[in-house]
């Protein structure tokens, strides 16, 4: 596969799957305002994914569309990070996952806005405004969890401990990524890792949270290897396209 298409899919798939998880929370939020806020974030992410899918389809030039890429691939053909597919176990899990990925997206898009690839630079610049707000919101929630009740601190701690094992993958470059790095197209993940660490440490400090000591990490999303949850996500997400292949909207 063309390196550029693969790199586009890594970014777009992660945004799409995270967006789907947030959309699952629609009508299940703790209260109306939070419900709307979550779906707003989901819409921002799907907007970013859509424009990248359309561009990837254009490069592939095999007659497939952005929608085909989003909805008509098999499990091992999605390259999203495994963190984005982790379930909404409780509100703390949803928000800790969001905080980790918002922080990642913020620094990733900051770097990509300087990419030599003008399409990526434009998408990154546009989405960065949205992600800046997402990060502000999820950071505030982390701080609120940590300084709220014993229960909120415990739930946030559990979520951090459960999700930490998927964070290192964000910074492990795929072959496509490294291939594009030399051309000034993809973002330097080592640099982003440093910034991510600094931001997470800062927010953890304000939230009375600790970085987990267990260093065990899971990888695979960028190679199309996913967690057990992923098949369920696809079967729900692709239900409509499978049942009504010619559906239009």
């Amino acid at each position: 596969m063309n390196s550029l298409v693969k790199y586009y899919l890594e970014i777009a798939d992660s945004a799409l799957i995270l967006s789907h998880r947030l959309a699952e929370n629609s009508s299940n939020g703790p209260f109306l305002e939070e419900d709307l806020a979550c779906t707003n974030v989901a819409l921002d992410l799907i907007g970013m994914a859509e424009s990248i899918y359309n561009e990837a389809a254009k490069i592939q030039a095999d007659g497939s569309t952005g929608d085909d890429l989003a909805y008509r691939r098999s499990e091992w053909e999605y390259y999203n990070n495994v963190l984005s597919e982790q379930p909404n176990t409780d509100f703390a899990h949803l928000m800790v996952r969001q905080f980790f990925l918002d922080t990642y997206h913020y620094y990733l898009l900051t770097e990509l806005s300087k990419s030599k690839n003008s399409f990526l630079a434009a998408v990154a610049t546009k989405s960065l405004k949205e992600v800046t707000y997402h990060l502000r919101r999820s950071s505030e929630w982390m701080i609120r969890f940590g300084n709220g009740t014993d229960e909120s601190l415990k739930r946030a701690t559990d979520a951090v401990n459960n999700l930490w094992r998927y964070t290192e993958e964000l910074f492990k470059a795929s072959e496509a990524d490294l291939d594009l790095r030399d051309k000034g197209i993809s973002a330097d993940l080592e640099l982003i890792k440093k910034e991510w660490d600094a931001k997470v440490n800062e927010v953890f400090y304000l939230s009375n949270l600790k970085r987990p000591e267990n260093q065990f990490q899971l990888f695979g999303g960028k190679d199309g290897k996913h967690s057990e949850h992923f098949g369920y996500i696809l079967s729900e997400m692709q239900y409509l396209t499978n049942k009504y292949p010619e559906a239009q909207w």
Partner: protein
Amino acid sequence: MSNMENQGPLWEVFIQSKAGQPFKHAGSVHGYDKEMAIENARDVYTRRGEGIALWVVPSSEIVAVSASESNSFFEPADDKIYRHPTFYTLPEGVKQM
């Protein structure tokens, strides 16, 4: 929607649509703190480009005229039409009154 009773205090939301325009009451939101209130206000009331500035005010801090007092507050103004500038023609340049 669980925990309806536990969604934090109420805040009133005011939006300014353009620079120089007055802030208008848009509705209310729940929020545990100032940050959450202004973020919720942004997500609930400004998704479609409604404004360029936003205020939230704790609803409990708003002083209102009670229904029983409203007659003495407002009715005396009803029969004093000479207080309205309706006897003047507005110059053409005036867009808002």
